[in-house]
């Protein structure tokens, strides 16, 4: 019989090793799943997890995929540290895309690089407004932010659908539900010619490094960590829980909104029913994989990006269904949570005769 025994202090080693063990276990379980589906496990895994790295274009695509995940994941890492459970990043992403996209569609003749500034700010603002609703309802009425932010994700999806099928639909789209193309002024510039790697990378790196500095080097970061870990102690220190809820929600909502604005600008240049809001949920895994540390979220985003690109390749090359990616991602979070037990506990064999 194996017992769990508390460690005197949380293990730093296992805090860092746990994501690696979880990734290894996910690979093994994925191979088993492929074999169960009647596929050659090694061939399938090589398409999933090796093919994304094969050429320079593919590697750039990985980073492109990781940009929205890192932006959202870094914000969620701070939010979850504060023990504030913003599960509605997908909705905030959508609202950011709608706010920024609305601006771009209103200015079809815009020219000049400076228009990107109000465009991106509009995205942030859209996400913040959507995140402000659960923040307000939690701080004023004690309503659970998990459920409110999640309900708002469904509302945001319907709002997007309404706009692209109704007032915002392009007259030139032959009935397809999509808006006009944004003016070139609203397209994020490409950083490396021949790839799609865009300016969003700079924003994502700034967000991850900036939030890491904030969490580790500033009083605000300390406040967030104390309120999250020990709310009573935080109260005695004069840190306000309500203020922290507002801060965490607006920060994570603003970054999710920014990610939405970046994503529609850089990858599609218009708004359509599917703008990749699912990143809002995947970013939850990114935050946990990154140890709720904004810098770690950048690494986590790259890992999840591999699963996305690999999944797309497997769909094309192996005719594997796209849901396999979701299964892999879910398993990764399961294994990660299981391995995280070893941070605070160690395994010990129960000796014979011991109670």
């Amino acid at each position, binding site marked *: 019989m194996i017992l769990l025994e508390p460690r005197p202090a949380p293990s730093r080693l296992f805090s860092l090793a746990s994501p690696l063990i979880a990734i290894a276990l996910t690979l093994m379980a994925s191979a088993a799943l492929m074999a169960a589906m009647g596929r050659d496990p090694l061939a399938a895994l090589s398409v999933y997890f090796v093919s994304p790295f094969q050429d320079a274009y593919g590697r750039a695509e990985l980073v492109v995929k990781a940009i929205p995940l890192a932006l959202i994941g870094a914000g969620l890492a701070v939010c979850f540290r504060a023990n504030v459970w913003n599960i509605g990043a997908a909705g905030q992403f959508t609202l950011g895309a709608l706010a920024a996209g609305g601006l771009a569609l209103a200015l079809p003749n815009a020219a000049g690089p400076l228009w990107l500034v109000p465009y991106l700010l509009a995205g942030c603002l859209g996400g913040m407004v959507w995140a402000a609703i659960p923040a307000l309802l939690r701080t004023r009425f004690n*309503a659970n932010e998990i459920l409110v932010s999640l*309900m708002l994700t*469904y509302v945001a999806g319907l709002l997007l659908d*309404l706009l692209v099928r109704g007032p915002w639909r392009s007259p030139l789209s032959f009935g397809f539900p999509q808006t006009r193309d944004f003016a070139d002024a609203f397209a994020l510039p490409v950083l490396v010619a021949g790839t799609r790697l865009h300016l969003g990378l700079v924003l994502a790196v700034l967000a991850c490094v900036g939030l890491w500095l904030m969490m580790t080097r500033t009083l605000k970061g300390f406040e967030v960590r104390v309120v999250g870990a020990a709310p009573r102690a935080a109260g005695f220190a004069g840190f306000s829980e309500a203020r922290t809820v507002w801060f965490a929600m607006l920060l994570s909502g603003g970054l999710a909104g920014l990610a939405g604005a970046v994503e529609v600008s850089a990858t599609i240049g218009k708004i359509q029913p599917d703008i990749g809001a699912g990143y809002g949920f995947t970013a939850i895994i990114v935050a946990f994989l990154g140890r709720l540390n904004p810098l770690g979220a950048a690494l986590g985003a790259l890992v999840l990006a591999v699963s996305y690109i690999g999944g797309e390749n497997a769909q094309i090359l192996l005719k594997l269904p796209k849901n396999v*990616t*979701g299964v892999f991602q879910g398993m990764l979070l399961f294994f990660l949570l299981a391995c995280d037990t070893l941070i605070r*506990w160690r395994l010990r064999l129960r000796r014979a005769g011991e109670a």
Partner: protein
Amino acid sequence: MEPFVISVMIAATPFLFAAMGELVAERSGVLNLGLEGMMLMGAVTAFGVAFTTGSTVLAVAAGALAGAAMALLFAVLAISLMANQAATGLALTIFGVGASGLIGQGFIGQPLPPPVKLAIPGLSDGTMAGRILLGHDALVYLALAMAVAVAWFLARSRAGLALRAVGDSADSAHALGLNVTATRYAATLFGGAMAGVGGAYLSLAYTPMWGENMTAGRGWIALALVVFATWRPGRLVAGAYLFAAITQAQFYGQGAGLGVPQQVLAMAPYLATIVALVIISRDRALTRANAPACLGRPFRADR
């Protein structure tokens, strides 16, 4: 009026199953946010079994088993390994969405005959009351019977008292010799089985077909219903019917041609959930009176 009442009874059934199961789990101190994932797995498994065997009874049982299997995964992580319950529940939902889509890809677009209705000649079609109250499929009544049974179990039975003790003070319950871990496992598995049956009802009876993500947030609304009901079974039944009425009113609004876009009407259940949460949560005394004191906290026996 009559078709509306009938459609509300049908729409309330998946809410009743899923939310009543979650209520029992939460009363034992376990917050399982994975309802949506468990419902989807129940829905796809039940559909698959009904599609291949043609037996509704087997299909419902399979849905319950699938939900319970997902709940077991949750229980191992959140109860035995003491993982964060919120994160584990989310993992369950992400996994359930992907896995149900993967299992169900061959079932998309396949029709299924709706389940046999309980027909009592002369009674279920003679009068309006007969048509409203009788003449549904068996699961509609099973949901209500289960709700009564849960209410009795929690309020009147010795085991129900033990379950509430575990949820309110795990340490005291342990000191009294109650097995906290076993109680929580049982409650979580019951919650999973009920969520699975709720999902099965969606794919077998509510819309006899399978579609990806067909629960459309009902699992999350069921979670909100438990809060709305302040963890009391009687209020949960009322809440389930109220929310079913709101989801159904939406379709009648579409049919009536109010000039409101369909998407705006479809927002109604989600917005109503938020309003309901605010109304109940603002009264802290009300929520605190019945909320299990140990909700979401892991337990480990010190000795």
